[in-house]
């Protein structure tokens, strides 16, 4: 039997875009703690290897202190005779100018920083042989299919592939850039007992192919990366893949709480009570290690207020104190006014005309926005992202009504 820990996307020294210094600091140290805990786990469980499928750190941001920390953790594994298979990803590519290839790794670390697959034979503490095949990124923008370059498993000993890649069948892949793209078939045809994949931050099995897994990242970095995070404990025996078990290492948990506002919610105190009640249903015992993102939708007379950063900041601060959690984020830009644009659309006045015109704008938002704003625009809307356009136009009809109709 051969047991190893599959980690990926640790992103040490990544950038945390949080407004609070304390939250950024906690998140930064949480990633370190996650790595530390995974190493503790490997040592205590006397694992046969630790596999890191890329993006161990963010090359552009890696500090000397973090570099030392990483090497220190690898040395701990070395002291316990646990080999490390580490293939580089797009955030920590190899190559002479990048840190991964310049770090003085301990002798137990097998650095795979070349796109050409390399085979490493390892033997477990019980004498079970496994061949690891891995390839790494040597630049931050690899677009070739690295999986296709992996050799087909021929020997009797089980093979384990280690790769940082975008598998097209993966879920949540649309939010990640398609580096080293490959398909499920590219993996299946190699006949490997297990594929330790990295790049997609959502833990998952590849499209019902039980031998290929993304471990997900070790610590959630943004509200989109919610839920428990960690690594996968993989067991391989003579019959091949025996077991894959998730192990939680990420100390901080992100939780998304959807809250739909109604016209009854007309005051910030009411909103605060609603948010508190909604959050309480989702919070666990680890409050101090939880960050909650409230996603507000629906129609409320507070919509205008909730577009003001000062008000939202104050509400976040209040909710943080009330809930006793690490941090709170409130996404409120989807909250619309309670006025129904349909009531005004057909009226023979400028408002009706404007609402009808906005319908036209939405048909070709980018072009008409560019045309309407012309040189007045601060942002080059011809090149803006769809998300930005969405931010620009969401609730604009309601906004016009609020402004045009008296006593709105």
């Amino acid at each position, binding site marked *: 039997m051969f047991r190893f820990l599959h980690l990926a996307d640790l992103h040490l020294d990544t950038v945390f875009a949080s407004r609070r210094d304390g939250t950024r600091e906690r998140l930064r140290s949480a990633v370190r703690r996650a790595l530390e805990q995974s190493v503790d786990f490997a040592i205590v469980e006397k694992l046969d290897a630790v596999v890191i499928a890329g993006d161990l750190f963010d090359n552009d941001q890696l500090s000397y202190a973090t570099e030392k920390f990483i090497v220190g953790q690898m040395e701990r594994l070395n002291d316990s005779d646990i080999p490390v298979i580490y293939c580089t990803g797009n955030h920590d590519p190899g190559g002479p100018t990048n840190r991964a290839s310049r770090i003085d790794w301990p002798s137990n670390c097998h650095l795979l920083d070349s796109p050409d697959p390399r085979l490493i034979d390892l033997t477990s503490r019980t004498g079970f042989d496994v061949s690891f095949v891995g390839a790494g990124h040597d630049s931050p923008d690899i677009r070739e299919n690295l999986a296709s370059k992996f050799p087909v498993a021929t020997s009797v000993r089980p093979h384990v592939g280690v790769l940082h890649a975008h598998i097209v069948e993966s879920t949540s892949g649309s939010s990640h850039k398609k580096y080293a793209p490959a398909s499920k078939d590219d993996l299946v045809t190699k006949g490997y007992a297990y594929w330790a994949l990295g790049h997609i931050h959502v833990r998952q099995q590849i499209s019902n192919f039980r031998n290929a897994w993304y471990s997900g990242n070790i610590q959630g970095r943004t509200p989109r990366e919610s839920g428990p995070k960690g690594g996968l404990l993989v067991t391989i025996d003579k019959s091949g893949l025996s077991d894959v078990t998730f192990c939680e290492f990420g100390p901080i948990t992100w939780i998304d709480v959807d809250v739909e506002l109604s016209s009854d919610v007309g005051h910030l105190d009411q909103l605060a009570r609603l948010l508190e009640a909604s959050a309480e249903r989702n919070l666990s015992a680890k409050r101090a290690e939880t960050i909650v993102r409230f996603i507000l939708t629906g129609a409320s007379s507070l919509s205008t207020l909730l577009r003001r*950063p000062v008000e939202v900041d104050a509400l976040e601060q209040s909710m943080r104190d009330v809930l006793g959690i690490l941090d709170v984020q409130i996404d409120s830009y989807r909250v619309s006014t309670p006025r129904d644009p349909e009531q005004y659309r057909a009226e023979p006045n400028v408002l009706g005309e404007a609402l009808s015109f906005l319908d036209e704008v939405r048909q070709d938002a980018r072009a008409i926005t560019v045309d309407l704003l012309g040189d007045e625009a601060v942002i080059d809307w011809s090149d803006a992202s769809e998300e930005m356009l969405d931010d620009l136009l969401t609730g604009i009809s309601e*906004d016009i009504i609020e402004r045009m109709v008296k006593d709105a």
Partner: protein
Amino acid sequence: MRFTRANIDSYGHFAGRSFEIDPKRIVVIHGPNEAGKTTFASFLTTMMFGFSPGNIDQHPYAQLRSNEKRLTGTLEFVSGDRRRCAIYRELKSTPKSRYTSGEGLFGDEEDLRNRPIPSVDHINRRVFKSVYSLSLSDMDEIESRTWDFIQDRLLGGLGMDYIKPARVVIESLEQEAKQFWRPDRRGKPVSSEIEQRLKQLRESRRKAREVDQRVRDLAVKIGELELSIDGLKKERAELKYRQRIINRARPVNTLRQRISELRSKAGDVSPYAELPADPIQELRELRDRKSELQERKLALESRIREDSATIDSYGDKQVALRTVEDEIRSWTSRVGRHESSVAELDETNAQISELSSRLQPVAESLFGSTDLKEILAQLNSVNQSALLSDIGLIADVESARTSDGEATARLKKGQTIALVVALAGLLCAVTGVVLANAFAIGAGLTSSILAVAFWLIVRPRSQASGDLRVEKQDVVNRINMQLGLLRIDSNRMRNGVPDSRLAPDMQRLCDGANEYVRLMSRHRRLSETVADDRQRLRVLTERLGTDNHAPPTVLIARMSRDLEDANFRYQSSEKARHRTDSVRTDLDRTDAAIEKLDRQESHMARLLEQCGDGDLRVGANSIISKRRAQIHADQLSETLDKDYPDWRDLLDQELSTRKFTEGEVVGTELRLDEVEEQLQAVASSLASAREQIRSLQDAKPASDIEGEIEVARKDLLSAKIERDRRMLIAAVLRRSEQKFRDQHQPDVIKKANEYLKIITSGRHNKLVLDDLTGSLRLWSEDEKRYLNVDQPLSRGTLDQIYLALRIAIVDHLDRNHEKLPVVMDEVLVNWDAGRRQRAYAILKKLSIDRHVLMFTCHQWMVDEITDVLDAQVITLG
């Protein structure tokens, strides 16, 4: 569309009211305040557009009637195509309606629920109430508002008062947009603040990266310094080694030279190794010790002789005494008992003589013999106690039999009397029966019974008397048989019964016989003991060969004294024997020691003579000198090993054999000092570099600042989006207003000119919009030029223009649609007569195409309108 009838079943305070309305005339609805004018107007609007709100509980005109709330009514009207139409509406739980148009078989009926009637579907309730209903406040606006505002509302909003003028909103948006971002550098828009912060953050990030690079450089430097330290330490070690060789080789060689000289002087002293440090002194001491030993030898020999005499004093006699020591010691305690036994034997003999003399007379009386031994033998052949008991018993039986005989005679007499009494009683009872005398019967029976009872009681006593006689005869028989065995003198018997003294005599003789037996037994035992003791004492004296004629006490005392003396001699001889062995051993040792000292003396003398060429003293001095040299050499050798433990390794070093010049020695020292200084300097640099790293690592990392930058970027982007969003809304409004104006203004102004021409009797008929400013301008025939529609135009002219525009808007909205009624609520009440007259002209023109309803509470107004406009009057209240 003209109203013909309003049937109000239930609406506000109207219930079951019906109003005929003349569709061809202007209608004046008149009534005092609270008469229901507003309710009536609301009813008309509701019939056209449906209930608002559509919930009976929330409707302001719903009133409780017959325990239920409901609103019901019907409005009949003639449409523009002259069809007669009616709309029935009802609101209870849900809105209901029935709309009919046309008449008879060709009429259509439709359920509109709460939807507007088809005639008004080109506008909504809000527009109708805002545009088609003119109120006093609308007209007051001309005085309270600027013309720009009024013009915006009329032309930009077609008079819809719930819509803000687009221009105002656009200005507000542009102001807000400037708070987010401005193209110029004025003010403090949000974006500028964020950009300023971004700039600071980027600078911080640059510094943080520099710090990190500095840390990395320091780490490299530390690595180099550590290497440098390693190199310097290595050189220092080599120099120290060299210096040590130099410093150590010299004294080692000096020592070794001295050792060598001393060892040469000492030569081979091994043959004299056994000689002491001071042979002469030792020789003297040897001789002294030998003298002491010889004196000791003499003393030991004297002691041996003394001990031999002591041993001999313990001879055979003493041995024999110690052999019977236990017996002698037992006699010392037993001799007293022996003397006592002898005395007791004599006393027993005397007692036996006295007893014999006392028993002999009794024996002769009973047996006719004094041979006590034989008599005692006979007595012992019978059971003495049984015989004595029977003799005693015969006396007792005889006594009892005598007294019993007397009693038996008395009883027999009593028995006879009792029999007589019983018979007499019986006779008496029979007599009583014969005579039937109860007393006689009772007395007779009682006496009979008592007599019988007495007889039964005394009968056993007579039987016992007979038994005693039998028992006496048995005892006499037994006694005779016993006495016959004892051959008792026959004189002591009478009729076979012993005499009365026999028993005491027999008793005394038996007691004496027992005493005699006991004394004889004691005499025999004591005689045996005394004889045994005498025999043993005789044997003891014979064994010791001593005189045995003395009394035992004396003999035993003498033997005890001899025994004590023997024991003392024995112990003395034993001690002497033991001591003699030890003294002899000591003597042997002393002899050996003397012999050994002799040998040592002669050996030493021989060695000293040998070393000193026959002279002992010279030889001794020579040996002492050699030995001193040897000791000194050994001490130096120890010093060498101690101070230079590795001197042997040193001998193996190549450098040790080399002769260092003074320059080399000094050069080595100088270089070593240099290396030490360099080491200190590098160590200091190393510590400094490490300290710098420690301090630098506390700085905020670039990634954290990058996070802040990311947030600031998002904020900046958000500010820009918000800014562009406002500008976009402004642009949308601007374009929409322009489009709206293009679409509506020309028609409105054209129609307004028509009305204006009527009102002003052709004086003003040219109202235009300035293309540049968008302002209304009016052609003045008097001044032959266009004037701005604003002050200083007369108030009257402004009123005319305002009314013309309002009505033109209504016409414009109804263009290509059903022409809807116009409602005027006290619009002209505050106007002066001249202005009213001009307004009536407009209303007259207006009423040609549409129904005009005027609400007023003023009678003079009713009168004036009916007079001028031939209006129908509906009076409420």
